[in-house]
Structures are given as C-alpha cells and as structure tokens.
C-alpha cells in the first residue's frame, strides 16, 4: 500500500502486526513500547524522520484504549497521574534543553546511548531480582505477601517520603508526600525529553518501588500518563510535519485490539509475575540500543 504523506510502499498487514505486538505489550506492562515499535517501523520502511512522531500518534490511540480498559478494572489512579504530570511537563522541557546542549558539543548520540543502556540495564536487573525474591517469599511463606511486594526494607519511608504536604491516594491505597510523586514526574519527563521515549519503562518500577503503588494500578496509571504525554508529543511532532496519520491508523488497527487483550491479561497474573516478565523488556531495549550504537 502506498502511503502518500511519507511517499513509501509498506504492507498494511506488517504495520498492523507491529501495532498488535506493541499493543499487547502496552496493555500488559503499561508501557508505550516506543523502544520496540520505533526500530520495527524503521525496519518496515518508515522514514526515520517520521518514526518518532508516527509512533507517538499510534501510542496515544493505543494507550487510550488500554487505559480505559484498566480504568474499568479500577487500575487507574487519576489523582496520582494528574499530580505526576505537574512534574513531567517541566521535565520534558529540561530534557530537551539538555539534548540541545549536548548537540552543540557534538556528543549527543554517545551520551544519550550509553545513558539509555545504563538506566535500562539497571531497571531490568533490579526489577528481575526483586520480583524473583517476591515470588520466592510468596511461595515459601517466609514473609506475608504484602511485605514482599512493596520492598519496605529496601526503601524505608523517611526524609522526602514524609515531607509535607502529604497526599492520600485512595485508589492506590497509599499516603505519601507530594514531593516523590513530583520527582518521579520530573525524572521520567526529563528522560522522555532527553532520550525521546515515553518513559513508561522507568515510571512503572518507580511507582511500584518508590510510591508503593500496587503493580496493576501502576500499569493503569502509567498508561493514563502516556495518553497525555504521547498526545502532547503527537501534536508537537505533527506541527513539525513528522506524523503520517495513515501509517499511525494502520498500526492502531492492530494495536487497539492488542491493547485490550494485554490489559485483560494482567488479571491472570500477580504483581511480581508481571514485574518479572517486565524486567526482560528494558534488557531487550538496552541490547537494541547497544546494537544501534555499535552499528
């Protein structure tokens, strides 16, 4: 099929299939899936200048579908999502400014690449280690499941976690200081602006380990956050002429169906199992980035 905006011939079935795979992952893990969709779109023949914007467009649609599904299951903490956005927006701007500074010094690709690999590997290893530990504790009854899941020993609630104002998050069942929530928004926003990714792979573990949000609610809330950040990104990239809406809609055909399946799939697994499966994603992404840097 000929996509006139980008001027390329690509099979719509391949695009829909990419959308479906990324949709299932997005619905299940609460990630945008840009780290996977981007390289696959480029491989399918989408010009590089259209990859990021078009990916964000399809990510917006897919995340709306998955977030609505998670909301119906009670997995979206809207208050938490809205508070994080306050930190996310200036974070994105700070990240974009940092990239411009690095661009001026001609070191952007290397610094961004290695930062990405370091963060992804650290998240993957930590999440994998913690979820295996939580699963073992559940199986052996060494600790009650609650103690194993929220990692209270690794991250004691002191300092910034108790700094006023304190906020109640009834959906997540958490009372916490506003500051760590804003900090998570700022850090993930910074990385979104700096690395050009949605940041779901970082936000999910931070919500679980720092804020103490149950994994299922973290997945739903992460998707809610992605709807807003990816929607903003879509508009911004479309204004720069970087979005082929026909390619995005083709991918969305598969992604919308995949997102529904992925979201419902979370009901079949416990939090630690979801986190253990999730831990593979950042490692895969790190390998893909390493290959890109090497190539």
């Amino acid at each position: 099929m000929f996509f006139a905006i980008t001027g390329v011939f690509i099979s719509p079935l391949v695009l829909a299939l990419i959308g479906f795979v990324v949709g299932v992952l997005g619905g299940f893990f609460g990630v945008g899936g840009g780290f996977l969709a981007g390289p696959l779109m480029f491989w399918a023949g989408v010009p590089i200048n259209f990859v990021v914007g078009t990916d964000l467009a399809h990510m917006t649609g897919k995340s709306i579908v998955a977030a609505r599904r998670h909301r119906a299951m009670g997995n979206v903490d809207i208050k938490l999502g809205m508070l994080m956005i306050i930190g996310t927006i200036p974070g994105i701007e700070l990240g974009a400014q940092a990239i411009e500074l690095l661009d001026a010094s001609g070191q952007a690709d290397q610094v961004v690449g290695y930062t990405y690999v370091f963060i992804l590997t650290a998240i993957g290893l930590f999440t994998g280690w913690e979820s295996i530990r939580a699963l073992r504790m559940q199986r052996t009854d060494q600790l009650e499941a609650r103690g194993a899941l929220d990692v209270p020993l690794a991250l004691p609630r002191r300092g910034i976690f108790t700094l006023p104002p304190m906020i109640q998050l009834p959906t997540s069942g958490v009372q916490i200081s506003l500051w760590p929530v804003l900090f998570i928004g700022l850090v993930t926003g910074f990385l979104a602006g700096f690395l050009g990714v949605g940041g779901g792979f970082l936000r999910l573990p931070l919500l679980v380990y720092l804020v103490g949000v149950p994994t299922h609610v973290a997945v739903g809330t992460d998707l809610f956050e992605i709807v807003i950040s990816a929607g903003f990104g879509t508009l911004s990239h479309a204004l720069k002429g970087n979005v082929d809406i026909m390619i995005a809609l083709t991918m969305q055909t598969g992604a919308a169906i995949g997102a529904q399946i992925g979201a419902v799939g979370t009901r079949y697994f416990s939090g630690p199992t979801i986190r253990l499966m999730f831990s593979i994603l950042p490692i895969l992404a790190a390998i893909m980035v390493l290959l890109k840097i090497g190539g």
Partner: protein
Amino acid sequence: MKEEVPERSSSDPSLRPLLRSLLLELAIYAPLVVLYFLLVLRYANDFLTELFNRDTILYAVVATVAIVAQAVLLERLTAWLLRRFGLR
C-alpha cells in the same frame, strides 16, 4: 497499601465472565476498527495528504482528533452495541 492481585489460572471460574466479555467485545470492536480504517483510507486519505502539504496546523489537529476518535468513539460504539443487543 492495597493488596496485590494474586496469581490466577486461565481456568479460574471467577475470570470466565471477564474473558467472555472480552471475546464478545473483540468480536464487535475488531471489525469496527478495521471498518474505521477502511473508511478513512477511502474517503479521507487524499484530503489528509493535501492537508499535510497545505496546512500543517490544521493537519496536526485533524491527525490528533482522528487517532483519539478511533480510540474513544469506537469503544463507546462497541459498548452501546453490546448493551443494545443485551450482551453486557
């Protein structure tokens, strides 16, 4: 902190209504998604391409609306159809 959701088997009887609801919804939603895409392709492809080349601001707005509409409207339509036929 709320309790985490425990592990469940796909044969868990408590999850059967959820699975049935998903399958019913997909049976209606999937054809609607494909139909929406084909309608946009048939009637709006040339318009969108022309808009992309002529008016970037309007294109950005229409593109964002098209993707959001696909996600929101089709799901609402699916929910309405399910209720209309007494399947939900």
